[in-house]
């Protein structure tokens, strides 16, 4: 039976990794991720986790070790943040191109310089186009559930999955979290058996030279796997709800019925947005929230369905694609582009480098959204 434990977000990651039957962990410490691997080490000592820990000298090597282990068929996990994720970048591409079911927990941390260990999403969104599935978490329970589901998705789709959680707001804040037993989730995570798993009985060469047409075909298959992931994420969420009575799939629609103005948010900011929606509803305004949980694959159809009935949409970004706009804003607007009767989409940037996003920040955004939509995001710096 699942049991409740008081866990920080990082501890929840570690428990989820242990419950997923992970065999190999290779990681390099970096704040605010470090307590994930520390907890894993401690769980290993207590016999809760059976994972072999591979100490390495850098994040690049951490992911390289995971790639080797995954190729050999081991269930594999790593965790990092900010600069560490950036250092992995080359191998982030490799893991996806080699279609390896690696799970990575990224604790969002602002990119240096200046040095800043607090949260924003520019580190993980810089890995947007690598072929990884990205799931953004709102609270500790969702962290726990997403990590276990990530292993299920990765093995089903032969795609690496990144579970993303906010620094400190989530990584270091403790909540009561229901921790499933391994037996309650083991059947959801299939054994990974593909022709490109290393098999000593059947020698093969991997990663060799590929001509253009064949290369393009391989990339098309990565894209196709992401389309498949859209339904896989929903299916898994449905199974999870049936088994544990909680959780969402690609997006979460909160009080969107008949809503004129809909907020779009991700991560812990979505929790604050929920409170704002409740306040506005209490005041008689028809506000709603769409939380984006899956950013890759991008849930275009689900968003269209959720947002088309609204009169205006305000997208909150804890990130910036410099010279363009907030990244969620770009993608939400693109999802609605050209649809008859689509509502105007307004973009807002707030909370970079861990700055607080308060209810009044979000209310200010909705205030701006009453005006004409702008091509770029508005910085909510006041």
């Amino acid at each position: 039976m699942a049991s409740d434990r008081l866990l920080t977000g990082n501890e929840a990651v570690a428990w989820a990794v242990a419950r997923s039957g992970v065999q190999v962990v290779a990681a390099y410490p970096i704040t605010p991720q470090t307590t994930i691997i520390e907890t894993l080490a401690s769980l290993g000592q207590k016999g809760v986790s059976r994972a072999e820990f591979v100490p390495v000298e850098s994040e690049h090597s951490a992911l390289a070790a995971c790639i080797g282990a995954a190729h050999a068929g081991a269930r594999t996990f790593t965790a990092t943040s900010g600069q560490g994720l950036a250092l992995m970048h080359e191998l982030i591409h490799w893991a996806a191109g080699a279609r390896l079911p690696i799970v990575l927990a990224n604790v969002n941390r602002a990119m240096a310089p200046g040095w800043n260990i607090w949260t924003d999403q520019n580190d993980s969104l810089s890995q947007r186009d690598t072929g990884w599935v990205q799931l953004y978490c709102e609270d500790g329970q969702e962290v726990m559930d997403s990590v276990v589901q990530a292993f299920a998705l990765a093995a089903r789709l032969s795609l690496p999955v990144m579970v993303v959680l906010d620094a400190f707001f989530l990584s270091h804040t403790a909540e009561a979290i229901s921790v499933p037993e391994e037996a309650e989730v083991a059947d959801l995570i299939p054994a990974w058996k593909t022709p490109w798993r290393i098999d000593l009985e059947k020698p093969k060469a991997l990663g060799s030279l590929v001509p253009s047409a064949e290369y393009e075909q391989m990339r098309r298959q990565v894209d196709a796997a992401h389309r498949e992931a859209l339904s896989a994420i929903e299916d898994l969420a449905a199974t999870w709800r049936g088994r544990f009575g909680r959780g969402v799939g690609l997006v979460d629609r909160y009080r969107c019925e008949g809503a004129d103005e809909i907020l779009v948010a991700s991560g812990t900011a979505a929790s604050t947005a929920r409170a704002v929606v409740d306040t506005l509803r209490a005041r008689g305004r028809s506000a709603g929230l769409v939380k984006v949980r899956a950013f890759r694959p991008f849930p275009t159809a689900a968003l269209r369905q959720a947002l088309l009935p609204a009169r205006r949409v305000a997208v909150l970004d804890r990130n910036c694609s410099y010279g363009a706009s907030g990244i969620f804003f770009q993608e939400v607007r693109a999802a609605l582009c050209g649809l008859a009767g689509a509502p105007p989409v307004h973009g807002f940037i707030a909370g970079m480098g861990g700055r607080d996003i308060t209810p009044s920040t979000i209310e200010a955004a909705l205030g701006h959204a009453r005006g004409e939509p702008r091509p770029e995001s508005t910085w909510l710096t006041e």
Partner: protein
Amino acid sequence: MKRLPDGRVVFETLADVPPVAMTYASTAWNRTGDWRSREPAFRDLTPPCAAACPAGQDVVDQIRLFAQGRVREAGEVILSANPFPATTGRVCPHPCDAACNRGRMDGALDIPGVERALGDALLSERLDLPARRGGQARVAVVGAGPAGLTAAHFLALAGHRVTLYGREDRPGGLLRTGIPPYRLPRAVLDAEVERALRPGVRFEGGRALGDGLDLARLGGESDAVLLAIGRHAPRRLGVPGEEARGVVDGLALLEALHRGEPAPDGDRVVVVGGGNTALDCARSLLRRGRKVTVAYRRGREEMPAFGDEVEEAVEEGVAVEAWAIPLEVRSRGGRASGLRLSRARPGEKDASGRPRPEPVPGSDFELPADLVVVAAGESLDAAGLPSGLVQGGAVAIPADSQIAGRLFACGDCAGGGGTVAHAIGAGRRAAAELCALLGGDAPAVDLLAARGAGPAVAAFDGIRPAWFPPAPPRSRGRAEAAPRRLGDAEVRLGFDAPSAMAEAARCLGCGTCTGCDICYQLCPDRAVLRGAPGGYRADTSRCKGCGVCAEECPRGAVELCEVGA
């Protein structure tokens, strides 16, 4: 999906393409080596120790085999260059040690210690080099020191009928008469000399040129004559009063002590000179209860004696009076009573790079001495040599002499480098030269070239210290100083066999492939192939010329070269 004869797979439709780049077929069709503009050359260099060895030993190869416990194989390598390793392990100043690249890491290898242990082990093993044969000439070798012995040994191994003539009753030359037993135990010397003679060298003692041995007659009886008579004529001090009683020559003193004669009278001794003979005299007299001072005209650092000898002498109680130029032997009733000296200071550097001693005016002083030993260097003893053979104080065979082409000279008498190792190297080269004339399997002159090593010296910047775990040198130490003064027991201690092998295992093997497989394992294209003569070769159909093998070779034995260069 279609498989081509060369192993490639062609997809007929894109639906056949797997999700990742992989193949069960061979990738050998992809000749990545065609891109290369550089490729590795797997070639050995000359290690700095071997380059520095006056005897021309293949130091690295003999040490490697010894470290692996392959004593007899190591013995064959060392004996093929030097028939006296147990001797040189004790008395050679070992310039190899100063050249050792490991000196720039955690300390130079103790090559003398290893050589001595290997030499001793070979005596217990009673290892002899196999005879090479083929020669049948009659050769006379005059002089039974290290040069003559070495030449006679290799000539006899080549099958020649060799007669070795020595001035003393027993062969050994300066090794026996000039090096005291506390530095070279007689049992070691006897055993090595005996082994050197074993291939069939006939020794005739008590025969010296001008004293029962006639060069012209020898030439008539032999197909070739080799002169290896060394340098043992004393140099005089050249100061007033040196004809007094109680002024003796250093080498003559050592010879007398060797013969078991009592040391000349005199309790207070001043030895003049700074070479090994001077120090050997000083320490030998100290062991006979005398009070000894060594006076040298330059500083202690400039003494030509080996550093260890000076240090050990001082430890034992020999006083050193440096920067002191002898001016006059003072005497009373025809017998020496003291040596007057002038203080000196360092002046301009001379041809040897050492500061010339300049007398300091008004600084004369006197050391009381009833025995003055002059050890100011030795010169050629030309007795019995036709005058045409002596040039500039050394034997030189003129091209137009009657026996030119059949008369040879080697070692100190021919202007050799002055150490035992120089004499051994010269003896071996002379034997090879004679074999070239007379036939017979000559000893290798250049052992490194014989096993394919190039002449360039493996420098430290080619070494990759990260591959070598730190291992500081072992210490052998010396016997306690006080008991040393009481007898002839050996001063320097040796390694036991396991310690010697462990010390040998510290050898980096500079510029020498040891088959460590690092190039083989790190090649990203698996283009380094094992099993080539000398170790490895590049598969040039795969090698992209990345240079990882050359960069990572711990010993600098791989070089990245331009293709076609």
